[in-house]
């Protein structure tokens, strides 16, 4: 911060000032931490930087990143979607069931499952806007219902026998890059475009920033919110379907643990639970950070039982640091 002030007087300090500015934003702060951790891990456990390990790592966090991007949209409108894990699981199961029990082309089954996710999300959105119910409660209850259906459909058994030709979407590589990772990046780019350059994106921030003002400038709040929940449902379904293809079977456990991970990734990445503040890129970094942590636990042969403890501590650290950063910035 001091650097910036000096830069006004002495033009030669400009690069330093720019650096200062970069570290002023949450997502760049997280990016710094992420890079730092990666360098440290490369040093302690050289196998970390292997292309094999990198592939595993990226594939691992892509699923959570995709779900967390949808969650970020919802959080930006000052809502929350507690049903993402269940929608992911149920959509994965439904895609497997369709492939096994209908004669449809497997790709059509995939599309139908995504549409199913969108439908689940729209139902959430309609209940929240048209009946004016609390998002926390609606999505909590809907999540229970969706998880229940997973059990009803599978009876607890995996649905196996998925056609081989679609499995590459979950398991394959394009060059050094795992396919789910590529899908995640493409979606990220699309969402960044939507949020920064389209009216719909502006409306999302406006609703979260001040809903009553948003209504008074003519934004159709209900419509935007339903869209956002539908997108969140679609993204969850996509993550679930990709995971099903990764596993090669409709496992009833798909989606477990993704709910908290999606919220955690968004929060680490600087998305505010109060709405109106946050970026997709931050969410991707947040998911990556959690992925690296999980990977480090494996590489350093720490008991996997410690993972949740460590993730919890990292979240607390991240939001504390961010609060601190915001306070310093405000004082300036």
């Amino acid at each position: 911060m001091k650097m910036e002030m000096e830069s006004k007087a002495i033009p030669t300090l400009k690069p330093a000032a720019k650096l200062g500015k970069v570290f002023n934003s949450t997502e760049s702060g997280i990016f710094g931490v992420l890079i730092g951790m990666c360098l440290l891990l490369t040093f302690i456990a050289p196998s970390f930087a292997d292309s094999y390990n990198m592939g595993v790592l990226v594939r691992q966090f892509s699923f959570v990143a995709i779900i967390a991007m949808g969650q970020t949209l919802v959080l930006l409108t000052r809502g929350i979607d507690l049903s993402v894990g269940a929608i992911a699981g149920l959509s994965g199961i439904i895609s497997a069931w369709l492939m096994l029990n209908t004669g449809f082309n497997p790709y059509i089954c995939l599309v139908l499952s995504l549409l199913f996710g969108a439908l689940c999300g729209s139902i959430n959105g309609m209940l929240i806007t048209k009946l004016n119910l609390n998002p926390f409660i609606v999505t909590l209850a809907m999540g229970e219902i969706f998880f229940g259906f997973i059990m009803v459909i599978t009876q607890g058994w995996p649905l196996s026998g998925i056609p081989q030709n679609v499995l590459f979407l979950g398991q394959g590589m394009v060059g050094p890059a795992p396919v789910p990772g590529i899908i995640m990046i493409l979606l990220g780019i699309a969402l960044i475009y939507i949020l920064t350059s389209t009216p719909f994106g502006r409306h999302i921030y406006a609703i979260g920033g001040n809903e009553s003002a948003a209504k008074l400038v003519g934004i159709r709040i209900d419509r935007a919110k339903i869209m956002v929940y539908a997108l969140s449902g679609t993204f969850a379904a996509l993550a679930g379907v990709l995971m099903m293809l990764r596993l090669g079977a409709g496992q009833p456990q798909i989606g477990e643990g993704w709910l908290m991970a999606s919220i955690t990734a968004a929060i680490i990445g600087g998305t505010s639970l109060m709405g109106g503040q946050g970026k997709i890129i931050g969410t991707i970094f947040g998911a990556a950070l959690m992925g690296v942590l999980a990977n480090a636990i494996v590489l350093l042969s720490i008991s996997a039982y410690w993972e949740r403890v460590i993730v919890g501590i990292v979240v607390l650290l991240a939001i504390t640091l961010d609060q601190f950063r915001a306070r310093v910035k405000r004082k300036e």
Partner: protein
Amino acid sequence: MSHESVFMMKNISKSFPGVKALNEINFDLKAGEIHALVGENGAGKSTMVSTMMGLQQPDSGEIFMDGKKVSIDSPLTALSLGIGIVPQELNLAPNLSVAENIFLGMEQRKPGFPKIDWKATEQKAREFLEKIGVQLDVKAEVGTLRSAYQQFVQIARALAFGANILILDEPTAALTFQEAQKLFAILFQLKEEGKSIIFISHHMEEIEQISSRVSVMRDGNLITTMDMKNTNKDEIINLMVGREFKTQKKNRKKQLNKKSVLKVNNLGRDGEFQNISFTLHEGEILGIAGLVGSGRTELVRAIFGETVASRGEIYWNESRVKIKSPKKAIDLGMGYVPEERKKSGIFPITSIRENISMPLLPTMTKLTRINRKNEEALALKYIKELKVKTSSPEKHIRLLSGGNQQKVILARWLAKDIKVLILDEPTRGIDINAKAEIHDLIHRLADQGLAVIMISSELEEVINLSDRIMVMHQGKSKGFFEAENTTQEELLKVALN
């Protein structure tokens, strides 16, 4: 009745950015008196009460209680010094019982036990209510009570906390005549017991009826304190308004022969306003005057589609329209600058540029992409034109002063081709310079043919700015006045009924 002063303010001043809210206030309160505090909105009454309550610290000056200098640095200190308040918006917990509310924060326990002693709580609550002569089921939920009784609970609560000084801020606004009389009886009784009461009200009859002394505030100054028996309603109103009329009234062309843009016929909404009719013409400024709670804001909210009127019709360019959402109103060609800038005007953590372009996005989007260059140019244009003081259009709007925020909100609608602009308290809490600029702007826009509806609690502003003025009282229109031929006194009398 003793006459020593229990509370005294000496040379208290308080400034907010651009506004001197309190200017060298000297005020004293005697034991056993009901002291009325009057003034127009924005005269400084609330700030003065806030300093008494410890919500705000004066910049300079001293406060004495019973002759000793005190500093009231928090609401808790105020409470412990025996200052209790019955605020305009009652701050009771609606879901708790009467007894619980009275002792909230001071729960009654048996010594040594953590559990609340319900018997004692209810017993004592009953005693405090009986003291002020109120019969009430202490187990009833406060939210189910009429507002008069909620007020009595609030008074009992202040007494339970040992208040010797009681501040009532517009206590009768939501009361019926009988309920108000009951409240006055309680106040008289407390006065006889030697308590001191500060009574803030807009209703002159009440003030004449119950107060011993009256202090008049205007523009942050305490103009005078008088014994009630030596003055009367008319003198008080004159003092509130101020004798020096600033003759900055602009000469405006008569616009009434022009074409009507918006016509409202017998509009009504249950519990808010009834039978409102008027016609708004191109280039006309229609002022709406009336007290807070007279239905002014509710009326314009219904016209703009934020709420929906239950009766009556709205005509736009002579054809009937149903306005069910703000979007519909905006599509017709209306703009609305709401009363509470923070709550429903600005997008605080968003840039000035985005705050301006928010309702304009559809017009500057190609396919899906917002044309950033157009957007920036527009923001810069209005920042310059309206003299918004900022270092950059990318600055978050919350960092601007109130006046500059208001200009940004106005820019939002100027950039759009609107025919009717609705302004609700457009200059509240705004410093004098920005205020004058906004007034000029409104006149300029009207001269260009824009029709304006403007609500203001400042009568001087209404008269100087408007062509015609509608006065509202308790949800009803009390008539129209030509701005040229009316006075603040006349409007105030009608508004106070």
